[in-house]
């Protein structure tokens, strides 16, 4: 097999922390072919899932709001592929990608998004609250930073039960300025919990750029406050993400405590349902689109002769079909029974 690397992202390159310490072992090469291909599949699933959700929004079927993950797929897929099925993740408001990567049923997700009774949360949660304990997913969260404490708790459970599981806590750049970020990183560092903070730095928290919300260049520099390891990586390069998370996951499993990974990435769409995007230029968006994480990975797979262009096309087409089927499933699903409104408040 020909030596081959994912194309570099010029915008990201200049911001990277020196990765050499963590790259000693390329773990990606050890993956089976179908695992490598599965990553592409997942990325397509996320991309087309979100595209259909966008249609729901346009058609007015999403009554409240929701947050699209288009452009950020490599983060969820790379990170989650690097851990085990029984490792927990905690997600945030922009959580569809994490669910899909962790193996949630896209039919039930789609149904939830349009408020159907057979959706993941019986229609009670919606986009910002999809959780799926079967796939070890602690759920999205409508409160920025809200899931961070939960992630600490899950990691503590692992420790107390002497399991070697790790937890990935996905957070956004904006959430790193919220108090619970600090408390969670600190407490988990004191307790040396198996916890990977994966920060999807998509350059903005709603309209507020990193430069307007912090006084530092690299969020991973915050590791200094907790005496932990941390690194800034190309979050649009799924192979890098996989390699780094898998390296750190192993560290975590051996009791070395939490780590902080900053994946540089970009949100292609507006923040949520309504966003005229006055805070950034079209140019900026276009520039980033040139580093589409899916295209970069697909090119890599083809150049590395892991799959052919035709196979890639087939994967993409299948994803489109799967998602259409999910839309169909959701559309045909029944609305919740009104009696359900007051159930599930308390457990027996």
């Amino acid at each position: 097999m020909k030596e081959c690397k994912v194309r570099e992202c010029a915008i990201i390159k200049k911001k990277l922390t020196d990765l050499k310490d963590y790259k000693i072992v390329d773990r990606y090469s050890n993956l089976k072919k179908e695992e490598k291909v599965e990553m592409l599949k997942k990325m397509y699933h996320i991309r087309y899932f979100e595209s259909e959700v966008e249609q729901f929004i346009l058609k007015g079927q999403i009554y409240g709001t929701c947050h699209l993950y288009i452009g950020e797929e490599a983060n969820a897929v790379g990170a989650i592929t690097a851990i085990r099925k029984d490792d927990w993740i905690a997600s945030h408001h922009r959580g569809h990608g994490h669910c899909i990567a962790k193996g949630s049923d896209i039919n039930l997700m789609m149904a939830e998004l349009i408020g159907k009774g057979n959706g993941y949360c019986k229609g009670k949660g919606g986009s910002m609250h999809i959780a799926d304990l079967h796939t070890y997913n602690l759920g999205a969260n409508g409160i920025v930073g809200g899931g961070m404490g939960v992630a600490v708790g899950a990691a503590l459970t692992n420790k107390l039960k002497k399991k070697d599981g790790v937890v990935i806590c996905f957070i956004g750049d904006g959430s790193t300025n919220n108090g619970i970020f600090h408390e969670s990183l600190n407490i988990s560092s004191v307790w040396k919990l198996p916890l990977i903070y994966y920060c999807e730095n998509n350059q903005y928290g709603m309209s507020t750029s990193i430069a307007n919300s912090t006084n530092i260049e690299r969020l991973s520099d915050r590791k200094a406050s907790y005496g932990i390891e941390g690194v800034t990586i190309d979050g649009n390069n799924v192979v890098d993400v996989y390699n780094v998370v898998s390296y750190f996951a192993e560290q975590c499993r051996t009791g070395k405590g939490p780590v902080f990974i900053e994946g540089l990435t970009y949100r292609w769409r507006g923040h949520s349902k309504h966003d005229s995007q006055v805070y950034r230029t079209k140019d900026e968006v276009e520039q980033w689109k040139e580093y589409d994480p899916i295209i970069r990975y697909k090119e890599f797979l083809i150049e590395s002769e892991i799959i052919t262009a035709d196979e890639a096309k087939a994967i993409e087409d299948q994803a489109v079909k799967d998602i259409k089927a999910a839309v169909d499933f959701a559309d045909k699903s029944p609305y919740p029974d009104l009696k359900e409104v007051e159930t599930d408040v308390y457990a027996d």
Partner: protein
Amino acid sequence: MSEITYLEAIRDAIREVMKEDESVFLLGEDIGLYGGSFGLTNGLFAEFGSERVKDTPISESAIIGTAVGSAITGMRPILEIMFSDFTGCGWDQIMNQAAKIRYMFGGKAKVPMVLRTASGGGAGFGPHHSQSLEALFAHIPGLKVVMPSNPYDAKGLFISSVYDNNPVIFLEHKCLYKNKKYAQEVPDGIYTIPLGKGEVKRPGKDISIVASSYMVQKSLEAAEILQKDMQINCEVVDLRTIRPLDIDIILESVKKTGKLMCVEEACSFGSFMGEVITQVIEKGFDLLDAPPIRIAGKNCPVPYSFILEQEMLPSVEKIKDGILNMLGKN
């Protein structure tokens, strides 16, 4: 004088006080160029600049704390918490700092600040973006809590809130913001409506309906229908401010009608209207000729799915039914 929405009226109020008083400034998440999550502060950044319209990081505690500290030292901050649900992230600063500083310091400080925030359900935002938390705020001594129901009141009450020397929680209902149905003629310039004074929004003699914010509109609708269809004549009392509470206007109304129905969107258990009913009982037991009732939100989080959400919240229909039941006409 022009016909404007609730949201525009509040923006107008902000603009007026900012023009008049140098010590007023805004802070909050994405309130600058972006104009706020609901667009309420649109244009203010351009007009007043980044020093007086301050975007913040996502740091609810620090934002509220900053407002408290600047208020004590001579400013009149107006801060936006995007959704009232997020006040949980800065609760200590509200409950233990803003509300108590004056008292703890033996009356030696003033904390003139307004915390504005979008409250209530009905917009499909789900459990973390739809709560009606007025009962929590209202229980804390030191806070004032304002819940306007229409554009005219919103502007006048807002201006009063800014000039009040206490921390004011200004709860704006997201379903009122842009709804043209509730647009009103609102005077230009500065005018004030006193905090702590309710208003009879519709006089009537058969039953007193007490409500605030969006529920006033729903109650008025129900009252209209009942008048037209059944000649039932409801009085609708808008509390406008729930702390201080204008108990007199309620007692006055109940004296006339002998019947009290309270309408609120919050979960009924431990709700604010429990306080209203209790005070009416304490002060006007003999005025009532039937047990007062509450039409309130069900005792669960506000669900996401539209039909569940409607089921959870009070509606014109439920208000109507409640009244008919109470009057024995169902």
